[in-house]
């Protein structure tokens, strides 16, 4: 197999992987702070993808412009979801939380099915087929744009957590909940804000991914699994880990698609997940034994 083919495939996987990373980052942020595993994560992303599809079909809006309204609306959605529905479950056992989010996911998937039917949808923008030629590499323009936007969003999120007072307060909740309560932080509000940030991330990722892949109502559960694989590999709760895990899975998916068969691509991802869980359960970037 020519080297260029492999390089091209790896580059494509890497760029897609950054979008995956942004999706997983949302899950990781929510888990890292609120300690809730969002089992409806992929379903939320599917809803965002359909929002972008609708925006494009109805008003001809480029999904890249849909990012702004989607991020705002999904932030509000996440805030309301955490504040109204999930917060009473914070101290419930894991299987209770799982059931609640599962019910939310079920309603979302089937809401999409009722509204849009089972057919696959996608968005074809006029620059879909453009590409850049860099030496021997042929890189899709859409992929480059999506990866750049995903990276920028991640950088923004990092900056928010690192430099703003509100980011500091959220990190305080994650590091020491009791301490945060003692100094008078409004933990419920901060948890809801975090959940909002997480869903905004996955909303943006959805607007980007709709440019790269088809969406069907049943994509939701598959994305949830994908996000889980990525954050476990990277380290649940670790922000750089989510990005690195996303890139790793993006590359491994495309390489498996090339070397084995496209339908076996997620098998390799699951094998990676099993290997990581078995030999380094805290993930590649996670801290051992909290």
């Amino acid at each position, binding site marked *: 197999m020519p080297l260029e083919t492999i390089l091209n495939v790896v580059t494509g996987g890497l760029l897609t992987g950054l979008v995956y990373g942004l999706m997983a980052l949302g899950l990781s942020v929510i888990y890292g702070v609120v300690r809730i595993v969002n089992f409806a994560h992929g379903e939320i992303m599917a809803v965002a993808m359909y929002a972008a599809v609708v925006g494009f079909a109805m008003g001809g809006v480029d999904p890249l412009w849909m990012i702004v309204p989607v991020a705002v609306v999904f932030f509000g959605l996440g805030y309301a979801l955490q504040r109204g529905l999930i917060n009473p479950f914070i101290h419930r056992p894991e299987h209770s939380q799982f059931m609640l989010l599962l*019910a939310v996911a079920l309603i979302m998937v089937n809401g999409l099915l*009722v509204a849009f039917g089972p057919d696959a949808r996608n968005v074809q923008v006029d620059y879909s087929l453009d590409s850049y030629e860099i030496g021997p590499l042929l890189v899709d323009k859409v992929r480059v744009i999506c990866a750049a936007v995903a990276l920028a969003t991640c950088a923004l999120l990092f900056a928010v957590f690192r430099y703003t007072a509100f980011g500091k307060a959220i990190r305080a909740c994650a590091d020491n909940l009791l301490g945060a309560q003692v100094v008078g932080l409004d933990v419920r509000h901060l948890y809801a804000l975090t959940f909002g940030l997480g869903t905004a991330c996955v909303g943006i990722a959805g607007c980007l991914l709709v440019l790269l892949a088809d969406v069907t109502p049943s994509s939701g559960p598959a994305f949830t699994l994908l996000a889980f694989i990525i954050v476990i590999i990277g380290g*649940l709760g670790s922000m750089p880990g989510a990005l690195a895990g996303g890139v790793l899975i993006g590359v491994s998916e495309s390489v498996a698609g090339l070397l084995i068969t496209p339908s076996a691509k997620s098998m390799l991802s699951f094998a990676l997940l099993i290997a990581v869980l078995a030999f380094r359960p805290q993930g590649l970037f996670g801290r051992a034994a909290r």
Partner: protein
Amino acid sequence: MNAWQDLKAVVTEAPVRSSAALLVLLAVLLALPLVLDRYLLSVMILILFFAYVGQAWNIMMGFCGQLSLGHALYVGLGAYAAAALYQHFGVSPWIGLFVAVGVCVLAASVIGWLAFRFGISGTYFALLTIAFAEFTRIGFDHFDWVGGSGGFFLTVVQQDRMDWVNLRGHPVMFYYLALGLAVLGFVVSAWLLRGRSGFYFRAIRDNEEAARAVGVDTFRYKMLAVQVSAALTALAGVFFAFYYNNLFPEQIFHISRSIEFILAPIIGGIGTLFGPILGAAVLTLLSEGLHEALAAAGYEIPGVKQILYGVALALSIMFLPHGIWPAIARRFGFHRTRAEPDGGADGPPADAKAPRPPAGPSQSQSGVPVVSTSSPRGGARG
């Protein structure tokens, strides 16, 4: 001997009221095929099937606190093992089921060993079980000996004859098979709860550190719980294969299947004996009822039923956090007078049907089982 005494005690020590209710229920279930039509019979089979898988899952999660979200793996492996042996070599399912159980116990041992060796629990363990189930699903998509993604089919024969040896024939036969499985699941669960391993399971569930501190071999008993659960689930797989006659990796190993299996025990009451049965009945009747109601209203858009189902699930988990059965048991006095300590925020709810700890030399004053140097035997292995 110990095991037999445990089993006997399950029968003799149950409160009269519960035993009577149980016997009446069993008699009604035995007589049901006489009055039910074909459709209602299939609904009953579905209820019993989900009750049984729920009971099997409940041993692992409800008793021992290990959350599996990949029980479709054991159903699928069991189904494919028995079906492939029958279709390719003409081996009777009664022999095939031993292979099915063997394969599933092996798979469970690998998963359990990997997880428990490295102290993986909670969410991580649940995700590991999903990973194995999904990995196997995609693997079977490419496993041509059993049809790959195109599906694997058993030869269907005339429906009037009942061939008990090869499990071919009339739904009534499958009804009694499903009933037998549900009874088996109930007896094994009651027996485990009553015996020493049941106490160890619950000690691990409620506080693993404390269980280890008093000397429970937590690794061994978690493995046992996973293996027993997988072995029982394998039988459900054999039943599934011969009842439905077709197997598709996309359906049988899928994560949504695993989730379907665990809804009944969670809704019914996790860690209880009747929870999975009650939950299976409620959920199946709800699902079928919604289907009928929507059909009658001329509103058969795909997805509407699942949305209502999702709303019902959310409401149930919000307002009955411990499940339906504990609430009913408390209301009608089906549980023991001895109050069980509540599982607290971190564990599943305490079992409303928990039997008294047996009085004996191996029992400390506080009710916490003390490990003797001789091998503790629950008798449930194998």
